[in-house]
């Protein structure tokens, strides 16, 4: 029953994606780990693990805990640093027929600015996703992402150092996420992505100690989907730039819910661990949904549930 062609292209703040499905930073390595299961050319894009100025060894083990329909992680931004990334991983990423988003983090505004300009020089990526929200690093994420002024400051610094589209990734651990969203958009963000992980923890009743060596970790997976959907709903109506929605997406139904709530594109994170083929199945499922419902252009879905 091959009906009319459905147009799946979306524009995420200046980045043309062949379809609205991408993968979340930190869950997709540097693009090669899921190669046996998914051809990146069939995805809208992929985001790489968060990059910092310096090499980061990350947090001590254990770093993972499973929770009901979710998981906690405290990886602590382990990454090889921007130099090694450019030297060792970027050349191969450039060969991929998909849009690569470089996710960046830092301890200071200067760090963000530095990493941005290194990426700008290096070339070959489609956009920069600015992680202002990683809850794992004591002197970093949490402050920038929860204070509108600091979030704006980081955004401006990144903006000033690149012509690439800038996507700012918001933290859900705030009273009013629309306030932060407005601040980063006013400061020059071309798009926003949300949500990063919810701050959580787990305790082992045998040892009577926190499960994670770092005590606190980030909650992700289907458990957080209702919160993520709510925030996408709120933010997409509060700002004019496109929203990249994520948080608990595992199936095409989940992804469509995010688009109806106002996301222009979506990203699959923890879902990859559960079903490595999830991103592919989601692309197919969105197309099928459009066809079955007479939707010719996937952009028609964006915000279609707004009252």
């Amino acid at each position: 029953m091959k009906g009319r062609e459905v147009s799946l292209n979306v524009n995420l703040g200046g980045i043309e994606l062949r379809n609205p499905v991408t993968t979340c930073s930190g869950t997709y390595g540097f693009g090669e780990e899921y190669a046996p299961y998914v051809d990146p050319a069939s995805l809208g894009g992929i985001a790489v693990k968060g990059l910092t100025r310096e090499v980061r060894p990350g947090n001590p083990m254990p770093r993972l805990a499973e929770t009901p329909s979710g998981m906690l992680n405290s990886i602590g931004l382990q990454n090889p640093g921007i130099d090694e990334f450019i030297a060792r991983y970027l050349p191969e990423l450039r060969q991929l027929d998909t849009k690569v988003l470089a996710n960046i983090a830092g301890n200071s505004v200067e760090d963000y600015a530095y990493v941005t300009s290194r990426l700008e020089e290096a070339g070959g990526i489609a956009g920069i996703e600015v992680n202002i929200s990683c809850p794992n690093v004591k002197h970093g994420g949490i402050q920038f992402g929860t204070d509108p002024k600091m979030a704006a400051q980081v955004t401006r610094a990144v903006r000033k150092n690149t012509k690439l589209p800038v996507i700012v990734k918001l933290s859900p651990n705030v009273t009013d996420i629309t306030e932060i969203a407005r601040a980063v958009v006013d400061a020059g963000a071309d798009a926003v992505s949300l949500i990063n992980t919810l701050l959580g923890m787990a305790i082992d009743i045998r040892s009577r100690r926190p499960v994670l060596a770092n005590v606190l970790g980030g909650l992700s997976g289907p458990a957080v989907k209702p919160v993520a959907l709510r925030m996408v709903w709120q933010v997409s109506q509060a700002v004019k730039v496109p929203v990249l929605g994520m948080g608990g997406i595992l199936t095409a139904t989940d992804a469509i819910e995010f688009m109806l709530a106002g996301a222009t594109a979506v990203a699959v994170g923890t879902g990859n661990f559960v079903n490595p083929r999830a991103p592919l199945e989601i692309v197919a499922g969105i197309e099928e949904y459009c066809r079955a419902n007479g939707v010719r252009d996937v952009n028609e879905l964006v915000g279609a549930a707004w009252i």
Partner: protein
Amino acid sequence: MADLFQARVLSNSEVCPGIFSLVLEEPRLAALAQPGQFLNIRVNAETSPLLRRPLSIHWVEEGRVEILFQAVGKGTEILARVRRGERLDVQGPLGRGFDPDPGDRTPVLIGGGIGIAPLGFLAQRLKGRKVLALLGARNGEALACSGGSKLEGLGATVHAATDDGSLGRHGLVTELLSEVPADGIIYACGPGPMLRAVAGYALAKGIPCQVSLEEHMACGVGACLGCICKGLAVNGESVHKRVCSDGPVFDVRGVDWS
């Protein structure tokens, strides 16, 4: 290359109390598998338990892949109820397994508890070689059904140690380490403390040794950085290695045991 399979369950049965043998009919998976590699299995279609469960390959024969698992929690208990004829969502084979070429050295397989399981597949690949196996378990029955009898069936010389003394030495498998010949090469899998003792012995005696490590995993493919162990780079520097994709099998010289 690893892949995803909707593998048909040929059988699933409790081979001794709490230990299950699950046989999958999946010729392509069987062809790809290497000893020491593992499968990442989704235990149900629901979101809780959410993550796949890593389980080692125990035996490969005629397009069939067998795993042995202990029912210890939510995931493995659900797996214990899977029935013949059902399809199981299996990802694999994953990780770097044992280097199964012992050169001219005598292969010594050291296994503790359910850690004996992956040594079965390794022994299959070592067939024709004189193999020594030092195995430990809580009792003789568990030892036999965790892979001990299969190793014997392949002609390996098995020396046993059991917690209750029902078979072989009354004690830990590490008490048998002195039986490792000087020209041996050790392949070990089992609980952390056992592996640490084996590694210490091998390093002290200069005996080549590969160990299969275990960590809680999320992705199983090296993407999430959740299953880190401390490794040693060639220059002696401490580096983070991923148990799932840089391992689970490591040369003991590449691990930071400090």
